[in-house]
């Protein structure tokens, strides 16, 4: 144990504590920072600080006591990280400026490594946190909300957490509401996104763009335009997330566009217009997911290749499956479908006749949306029944040879 103490000894012996507040040696944070050396800790007492842009060029720990407010007065980028190992905790950061070209936000990290942003409240900012070329940074327990744009965004608003060209960023237990994208990752690698609650964002709860080798786990995405969009990325792990209430015209629980080599496991999709939409998705394993009470369960475009659907549960969806062509290069194996009407004579839990999850009506609705007028009518029932006996339009390969009799327990 004391070995570790020795390790920290140089910091302990030379680091100073500087205090900022009304009755403290320094009244302004900027002055305290100017005085501080790398490794120092600055305590900031509660109060309202309007100091414009605070530029951090040293490795400083900034701690807020009684939640001091940093106000950007709708003009400034409030905190700029321009050094490594900066820690910011316990602040309320509000009213950042707005600049479309420079993407300014409340906190911005420029080439910062090993930095921590924890336990802060962000309100009414253009961007919450923006990071460029970060490495091993932690963003944890922050609440990032904004009411700018009035949820319509004629005047466009920024993302809650916007990470660009970074490596190994940890984004954990944050709450994001009302931003454009809750979390936006562009050209980001080896990142772990877990335990976040992303809701009521104008576009997506979480958005991957050209970002390979990432994992997101145990997050909740509700009431967004799309829960999560994974685009132009490879090797993304998605597990134990909840995608709920993403309702609307072009709304999806999970939107996959040009993505490959990924795993989607143990997720829950509930009450979405379309739970999963796949376009140009290849070699993805969908495993043990629950797809419940959605309009469409899974829409797989015919340009999707070699995806495997195993042991998923489909319950209460209007349509379990939909596709836009006749080509099927994906496999379905041992999923549970509540619409399955087969039997199980040998009692091994697997239905004895194969199940075709694609109904004729779903195919028609995809081609001619106005056919939805006939929804739940007698004609449609008749059509589906006849199609089951004499298949004529639905692709024959779209089949689960071994449908399960009971849903998978998780």
């Amino acid at each position, binding site marked *: 144990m004391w070995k570790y103490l020795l390790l920290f000894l140089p910091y302990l012996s030379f680091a100073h504590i500087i205090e900022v507040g009304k009755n403290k040696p320094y009244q302004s944070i900027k002055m305290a920072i100017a005085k501080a050396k790398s490794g120092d800790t600055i305590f900031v007492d509660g109060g309202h600080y309007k100091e414009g842009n605070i530029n951090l060029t040293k490795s400083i720990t900034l701690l807020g006591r009684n939640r001091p407010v940093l106000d950007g007065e709708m003009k400034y980028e409030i905190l700029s990280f321009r050094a490594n190992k900066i820690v910011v905790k316990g602040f309320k950061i509000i009213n950042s400026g707005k600049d479309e*070209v420079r993407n300014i936000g409340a906190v911005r990290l420029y080439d910062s490594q090993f930095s921590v942003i924890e336990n802060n409240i962000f309100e009414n900012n253009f961007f919450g946190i923006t990071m460029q070329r970060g490495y091993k940074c932690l963003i944890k327990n922050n609440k990032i909300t904004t009411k700018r744009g009035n949820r319509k965004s004629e005047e*466009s608003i920024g993302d809650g957490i916007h990470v660009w060209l970074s490596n190994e960023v940890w984004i954990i237990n944050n709450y994001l509401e009302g931003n454009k994208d809750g979390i936006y990752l562009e050209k980001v690698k080896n990142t772990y996104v877990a335990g976040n609650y992303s809701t009521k964002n104008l*576009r997506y709860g979480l958005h991957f763009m050209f970002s390979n080798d990432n994992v997101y786990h145990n997050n909740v995405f509700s009431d967004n*335009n*799309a829960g999560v969009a994974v*685009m132009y990325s490879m090797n993304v792990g998605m597990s134990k997330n909840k995608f709920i209430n993403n309702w609307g015209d072009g709304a999806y629980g999970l939107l996959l566009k040009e993505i490959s080599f990924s795993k989607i496991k143990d997720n829950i999709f509930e009450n979405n217009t379309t739970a999963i939409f796949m376009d140009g998705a290849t070699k993805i394993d969908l495993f043990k997911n629950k797809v419940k009470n959605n309009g469409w369960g899974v829409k797989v475009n015919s340009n999707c290749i070699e995806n495997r659907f195993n042991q998923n549960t489909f319950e209460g969806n209007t349509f379990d499956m939909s596709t836009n062509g006749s080509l099927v290069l994906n496999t379905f194996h041992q999923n549970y479908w509540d619409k399955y009407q087969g039997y199980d004579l040998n009692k091994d839990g697997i239905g004895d006749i194969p199940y075709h999850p694609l109904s004729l009506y779903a195919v*028609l609705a995809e081609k*001619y949306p*106005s056919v939805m007028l006939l929804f739940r009518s007698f004609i449609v029932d008749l059509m589906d029944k*006849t199609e089951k006996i004499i298949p004529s339009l639905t692709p024959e390969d779209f089949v689960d040879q071994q449908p399960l009799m009971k849903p998978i327990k998780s």
Partner: protein
Amino acid sequence: MKIGKGISLLGIVTLGLVSCSEAGPVAIEFNKDQCDNCKMVIEKAGYASELVTSKGKVYKFDDIKCMHMFEGDNEELAQNAKTYVTDFKTSQFIEESKATLVQGGAIKSPMGGDTQAFANKADAEEAAKKLGASLK
């Protein structure tokens, strides 16, 4: 085969309901409509573009680059199709052939095409000068 006939009849009826509009650009509902190429929601009026096929079907895009990518991927559809871009100044649709395009510099468009279109050449030159972009 009776089913087949029934379906085609249904198809014709529904198509009749859907079509019958004049070929031309259609207003985009921002923050709701999706780009037909990259599937992202269309947000910025200045960069939106549209492709109208010879049969009158409209495809919407959030970036001029997306439209060109779509054209390349769907040659059959793009044949004899008309392409429209938005005039950056007025947000009105204009035919792409009549527009002056400005690219690069400080322009940042949703999908990285970084192109703005102008109906008026003088406007384009002015914008190019201001943003450090070049005429295309």
